[in-house]
């Protein structure tokens, strides 16, 4: 098994996900399977295949530094769970 219960709990914490205790073993199992499957790729014969530097087929996609009108709070905050005028409101964070 590549992934332990502890790993699952830690990753869930990092991702701020709540995981039902009963499901932790199941996830550990599933994630381990995925990683084991990925390991299979190591066995593939790639001799003669050309090296690719990345998944991207292009480089340098860029834009000029020209201002576009921002949709602003009307659009940005339209799905905000809580707002006060044009601010998002969140539970108090100690800063």
């Amino acid at each position, binding site marked *: 098994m590549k992934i332990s219960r502890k790993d699952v709990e830690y990753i869930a*914490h*990092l991702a*701020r996900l709540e995981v039902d205790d009963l499901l932790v073993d199941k996830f550990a199992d599933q994630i381990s399977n995925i990683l084991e499957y990925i390991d299979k790729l190591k066995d593939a014969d790639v001799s003669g295949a050309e090296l690719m*530097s*990345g*998944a*991207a087929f*292009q*480089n*340098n*996609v*860029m*834009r*000029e*530094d*020209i*201002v*576009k009108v*921002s*949709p*602003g*709070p009307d*659009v*940005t*905050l339209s799905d905000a769970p809580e707002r*006060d*005028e*044009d*601010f*998002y*409101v*969140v*539970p*108090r*964070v*100690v*800063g």
Partner: protein
Amino acid sequence: MQYEPVIGLEVHAQLKTETKIFCGCSTKFGAPPNANTCPVCTGMPGVLPVLNKKAVTFAIKSAIATNCTIARESRFDRKNYFYPDLPKGYQISQYAYPIAEHGHLSIEIEEGLEKIIGITRIHMEEDAGKLIHEPRRDRSMVDLNRTGVPLVEIVSEPDIRSPAEAAAYLKKLHAILRYIDVCDGNMEQGSFRCDANISLRPLGEEKFGTRTELKNLNSFKHVEKAIQYEIQRQAYILDEGKNVIQETRLWDPAKNITKSMRGKEDAHDYRYFPDPDLVPLIVDDEWINSVKADMPELPDEKKMRFIKEYALTDYDAAVLTSSRELADYFEETAKKISDKKLAANWIMGPVMGLVKSEGNAIETLPVSSASLGELLQLLENNTINANGAKIVFEKLVNSDQSPASLVKDMGLEQVSDQSELEGVVDEILEANPAELNSYREGKTKLFSFFMGQIMKKTKGKADPKIITELLKKKL
């Protein structure tokens, strides 16, 4: 025990682009809350970031100015963490392949003694938003205007050994970024921010001690004070035989102490991975050369040139090149007169005094370099004396008149007429027979008394050289 501080600095500098790093929203400071936001910079599903070319050019410029090696290929990664000022849940940054590495800059640690501070890397990233805390209510307000504003993070090697060196390094870097015009350097508005990593080790020891990271150092003075405090705090802990805890600490400028930021500590595990939405960034020679061709003179080069071209001292040249605007002001002024040292003295004296007292920047000073140059011209060609020049300078602050017309209006033209001054000298000598006797009996200190009397009589307008000569002759 005697300890050696080991200090490394991380500077976040906001790049002076018009738009954000991955979208067309404006970067203007002070807009109404969330006015400069769009689906890209607020991390809505299905949007794609597109890199701002100008931001890359500015990063290249910063890299050249700090003697870095620019990477032909660099990439963008996601730094994952949760905080309400980070709507995407990750910050786009450059982790494994930054745009530049292995740079350095030199600082002056005492007059004439330079020290090289290494620069580990420069990478590009996006800024986070701003949280406004309501102390009386159990909530915080979020403004995402700053989210996605382009930054370069410039990381120094742990080569710094004292608070003064840290301040010198920061001032130098600040000046360079302002010289090359990629960052406005405004520390209050957060365009130039600094974090410091500090550890102590027993003097002579090779191995680094446990470090702490200081945040919230938003002025040069705070940086120096905070580091000073932290050195003492750590020395005290070590002397007690205890261990320094590796943590992030916040500088409290009101109390002059650093405080632990417990609670924000736990997830220093950012799970970086390549951002699949962004393609590799390739910087070729052509791009680098075009930026190089566009490079202005840097502070060190300008300082050397000032020493050579204007025969200034090392100290004067360093002060006058501390900002590009001040250097320009000096050069504009100095080109009108032949005595360059005169321009340096006036700028480092009355002009900088005025900058301080008015709380002004040199570029918005009510006395322009053109009018100071004209004033010094009048002084140099003996139309007025130093005393008159000071009076005119003070008038210039609140006047649109030219120095020449002020001199005329106030009747400050220097009296250099030999016979006219001779009359005044005779008059003063006659009116003060007791002093004249004492002088002739050896109280030569009274010379300045006579000078003063003559100046008073001529309302300060007498040519001091001529009356000195006349007095010497007649006494």
